[in-house]
């Protein structure tokens, strides 16, 4: 098998590189600065700062520094990145070009509407597309990330209940929901009430009915949930919540499984956020920026953040005259450059392409599940959506953990799956291949994991000490937290 005879990862040519401030010489410069063509102006000396303690570097110092750093990194362009719940699909290159279109990259966010028709039109059309794709009626593109979208959703819940005349104090959150949900709800003063999923990994409507009361603002659901399973009784659950005057929040982080399959409104969802950096292919940037648009029913549209982008006749304008709005949640119009990339992706894929992407994402996940379930423990053996969750139960006899298997995957040239999440599965190993991996690459990944399972039995120390082939090996995270060193020492 090629996976064992010739692993993807090699030692490579990896350079050492010091910290920035250990490079350079005073007086170098890495950037051209225009000459002073005006007289020097007087300045109050008392306000003048000390010189800033930055190293002086030449242009090539900077270029080599960051080129070398980049070679210590692994991205989707380097190889398969099957990180569950994160949808690490291919990030199309043309989308970068579109976001860098000169007049768009240069657009100032505070000029009059008539000077910004191109960017406003893009926002308007993206709102309309996302509404159609989710089945909901209105969209705000302001939230800068998924968690920011959740916060916006909770602000909408809060504003809506206030408008109904009575504020509520609690919110229901299943144990299969995303980790940010409780923290987002807490920002609005809501107390999170946990609901346990049943032994099939599903939410039981009877439990929801027991907990839902007139002091509960609603429920936050992730569907498909973080086990990669579709909450089949979502309509029933939504009806219970609505009957008690509550609202239903849908965390759309896993939307990549169900494009063209589900209609959020028909599911009973009132507010849904999307992660454009997952489903709509924008790059993750080593941690961000993303974008977390919020989609709502027409009943909740008046509560969306301002300004709204509206179309009047043939032109577009910003409208801030929405007295019920939750207000502004971003300085300007959200992570606009990311929105350009998602817009470009939707225009490239079209309706059929987007729907096919979800079908293939689900096919890929089920294929991995079927090919590995004889060697890795599968806690919920049911057809999955876009990701599947294994555990390290079968490896416990060898005292090999999920972490060990994950680190060993690095040696073979793969980014590990998400580990130890969702919390409901002990030692979880959550694999989301996405639709952009082909069968050959999936087969090689599967063969590699099977090799690792065999190594766990035959040479367990190989796993416990992995990775072996990276620039640095396992890092002491306990020490990092015990004596935090968060910035480098000053030159003085």
């Amino acid at each position, binding site marked *: 098998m090629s996976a064992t005879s010739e692993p993807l990862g090699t030692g490579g040519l990896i350079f050492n590189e010091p910290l920035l401030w250990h490079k350079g010489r005073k007086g170098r410069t890495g950037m051209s600065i225009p000459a002073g063509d005006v007289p020097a102006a007087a300045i109050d000396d008392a306000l003048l700062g000390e010189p800033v303690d930055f190293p002086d570097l030449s242009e090539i110092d900077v270029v080599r520094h*960051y080129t070398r750093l980049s070679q210590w*990194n692994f991205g989707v362009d380097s190889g398969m990145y099957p990180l569950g719940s994160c949808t690490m699909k291919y990030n199309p290159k043309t989308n970068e070009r579109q976001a860098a279109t000169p007049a768009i990259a240069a*657009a100032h966010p505070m000029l009059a509407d008539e*000077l910004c028709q191109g960017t406003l039109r893009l926002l308007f059309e993206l709102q309309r597309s996302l509404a159609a794709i989710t089945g909901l009626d209105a969209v705000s593109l302001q939230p800068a990330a998924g968690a920011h979208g959740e916060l916006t959703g909770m602000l909408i819940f809060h504003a809506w209940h206030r408008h109904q005349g009575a504020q509520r104090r609690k919110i229901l959150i299943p144990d299969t929901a995303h980790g940010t949900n409780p923290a987002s709800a807490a920002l609005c003063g809501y107390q999170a009430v946990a609901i346990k999923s049943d032994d099939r990994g599903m939410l039981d409507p009877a439990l929801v009915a027991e907990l839902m009361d007139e002091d509960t603002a609603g429920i936050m659901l992730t569907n498909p949930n973080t086990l990669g399973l579709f909450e089949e009784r979502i309509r029933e659950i939504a009806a219970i919540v609505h009957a008690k005057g509550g609202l239903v929040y849908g965390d759309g982080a896993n939307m990549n499984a169900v494009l063209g399959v589900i209609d959020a409104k028909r599911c009973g969802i009132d507010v849904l956020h999307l992660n454009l950096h997952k489903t709509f292919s924008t790059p993750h940037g080593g*941690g961000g920026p993303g974008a977390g648009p919020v989609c709502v029913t027409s009943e909740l549209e008046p509560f969306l953040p301002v300004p709204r982008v509206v179309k009047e006749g043939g032109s577009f304008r910003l409208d801030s005259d929405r007295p019920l709005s939750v207000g502004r949640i971003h300085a300007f119009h959200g992570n606009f450059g990311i929105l350009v990339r998602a817009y470009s992706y939707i225009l490239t894929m079209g309706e059929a392409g987007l729907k096919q992407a979800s079908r293939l994402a689900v096919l890929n996940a089920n294929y991995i599940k079927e090919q590995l379930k004889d060697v890795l423990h599968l806690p919920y053996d049911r057809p999955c959506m876009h990701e599947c969750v294994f555990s390290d139960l079968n490896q416990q006899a060898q005292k090999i953990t999920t972490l060990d298997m994950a680190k060993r995957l690095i040696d073979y040239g793969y980014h590990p799956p998400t580990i130890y999440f969702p919390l409901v599965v002990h030692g979880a190993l959550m694999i989301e291949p996405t639709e952009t991996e082909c069968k050959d690459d999936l087969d090689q990944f599967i063969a590699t994991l099977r090799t690792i399972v065999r190594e766990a039995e035959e040479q367990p120390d190989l796993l416990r000490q992995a990775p072996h082939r990276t620039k640095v090996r396992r890092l002491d995270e306990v*020490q990092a937290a015990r004596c*935090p060193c968060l910035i480098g020492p000053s030159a003085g």
Partner: protein
Amino acid sequence: MRYLPHTPEEIDAMLAAVGAASLDELFASVPADCRMTRAWDLPAPKTEWELNDHLRALAASMGVNEQTAVLVGAGSYHHHIPETIRVLAGRSEFLTAYTPYQPEMAQGTLQGIFEYQTLTARLLGVDVVNASMYDGASALAEALLMGLRIAKKKRRVAVARAIHPHYRAVVRAYLEPAGFEIVELDTLDSGRTDLGGLDALDDLAAVALQSPNFFGVIEDLDSAAAAIHQAGALFVACFTEPLAYGLYRNPGSCGADIVCGEGQSFGLPRSFGGPNLGMFGCKEPFTRNMPGRLVGETRDVEGRRGYVLTLATREQHIRREKATSNICSNQGICALTAAMYMASLGGTGIRQLARLNYDRSEYLKNLLIKAGARIVFAGPTFNEFVVEFAADFRPVRERLLAKNIVAGLELGTLYPDMAGRYLFCVTETIDRQTMDTIAAEVGA
């Protein structure tokens, strides 16, 4: 479709392996009444070349473009961006990586963010800086929430009216649902914030000032720190133009407890206001109250220097509803870009560039005064200032727009009491000739 690699034969083989007859059968668990039944009515898919044309047409419909001299800042600044930064920040090893949860394969991101934290801490004069927040506005809202957490029982914060109006709007959206009270502090004739009434405010957790403030005026941060601490509150210093600290004293050295703001000036295009970069730092004793990710230095099993995400017990995925924030990402590539920009400028370059911004903006100020305009606030400024013209400025502004110059931002919609006044911004991208043209039109 070029992003989807599956051939029909592969799909059939894979369906056989999972025991499904068709792709649709994979969705059997989705009930019929949850299903999407409507067509989306999206445009037909575009080829790469058609997409280029489409975006080019959108760009052409903009009233201003990259050639326009835009003398508007107000939180989004036009500075030159070296090609090196576009190339390096565009390297896909950085761009297409996820959050560095597997540090052995993300040392590039991690060392890069550690360097960002360090350079930013030096710039702002604070002990610690996080891996970044969404933007300056949400950073300010998070800073005030942090102040409220540190102060425990107190329920009130004060913010200067001279803070960017959009930032104050975001603060209201973040703080009001939880029942916190926000008091606004007026602006004096100098353009600085009136801190005279602080002693009369009890229950005050934190006070926020912006410097340079929205009107471009440098606040008296030393006196502010004394007055705010005297009132028993934490001092939150905010900014929209970090380049100012290449010239002026930074907030940390003046006694600010938390320093936060917008880092877009450092290598990020204006891009209609995003993605931006929320810079966020504080004094050391407050480190564990901070929101957001942190990168720390450590060693690997062989003793080599390396970097990891650390102090995660403050964060939402561990502490759930008791977390210091719900934030679950950072503006990773934007922070890295800002570090590249700071490294390219260097200590010598940042002083030079900041000085050039100051000199050019003073030059335009003087030209406008000579042409009969009044500079509204007497306080010192950096690269922005507020102007009042002797006559109606609108026709002049129209004539300048025809010459591809956007001359200032009218303040009436943001501050009704300042209608007819204009906020101007002059960076290194505005040359002398452009400023002479503006002055000539004003004097005409």
